[in-house]
């Protein structure tokens, strides 16, 4: 119930292509869904986030698509660049008093020039 399942584990995309990472959850009480980007040797950094009352959110080349009925959400990176090469984590917020984030297992993205 508390898991967030993320796929694929790794992804190779050509420069200019679209990168798509998918996540699924079970707990309908989750009320906030962020994506984090992590470069080697650094901590995760918030990239973009969405709430379940919205089906899509776009920030520059990054878009979250959210399907509440299917309990799935995905990250799309348009016009992928070598500088986007990083590990991406989806997460879901277990709301209430503790506000704990439950993380997916991560996707290692490599954008080839």
């Amino acid at each position, binding site marked *: 119930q508390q898991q967030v399942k993320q796929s694929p584990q790794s992804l190779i995309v050509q420069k200019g292509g679209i990168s798509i990472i998918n996540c699924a959850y079970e707990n309908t009480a989750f009320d906030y869904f962020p994506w984090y980007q992590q470069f080697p040797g650094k901590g995760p950094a*918030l990239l973009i*986030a969405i709430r379940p009352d919205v089906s899509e959110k776009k920030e520059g080349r990054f878009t979250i698509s959210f399907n509440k009925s299917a309990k799935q959400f995905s990250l799309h990176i348009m016009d992928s660049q070598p500088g986007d090469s990083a590990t991406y984590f989806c997460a879901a*917020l277990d709301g209430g*008093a*503790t*506000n*704990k*984030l439950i*993380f997916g*297992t991560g996707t290692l993205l490599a954008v080839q020039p």
Partner: protein
Amino acid sequence: NAGVTQTPKFRILKIGQSMTLQCTQDMNHNYMYWYRQDPGMGLKLIYYSVGAGITDKGEVPNGYNVSRSTTEDFPLRLELAAPSQTSVYFCASRTRDYGYTFGSGTRLTVV
């Protein structure tokens, strides 16, 4: 504004030794968290705190302990280090809009 500061950045411990990982935030956040990151496993919550004097266990608390005497500081204590505790440890605090701010991590090796 330094955000979340973790020290040390790297540490090698011998089996059975103890150490404290330090975490300090200057954003006056009530909520703070300790995660460990293992390859292919994502981030697992060790302990969290909702305010000074209040702490609770996360998913993987065994072998660790925490304290929260001030809003700013949330140290993680490892007693009797074991090879299974080799990992990268991240401290985080919650920002106003629910997003977490993470520190840069502590890479710990237990040999």
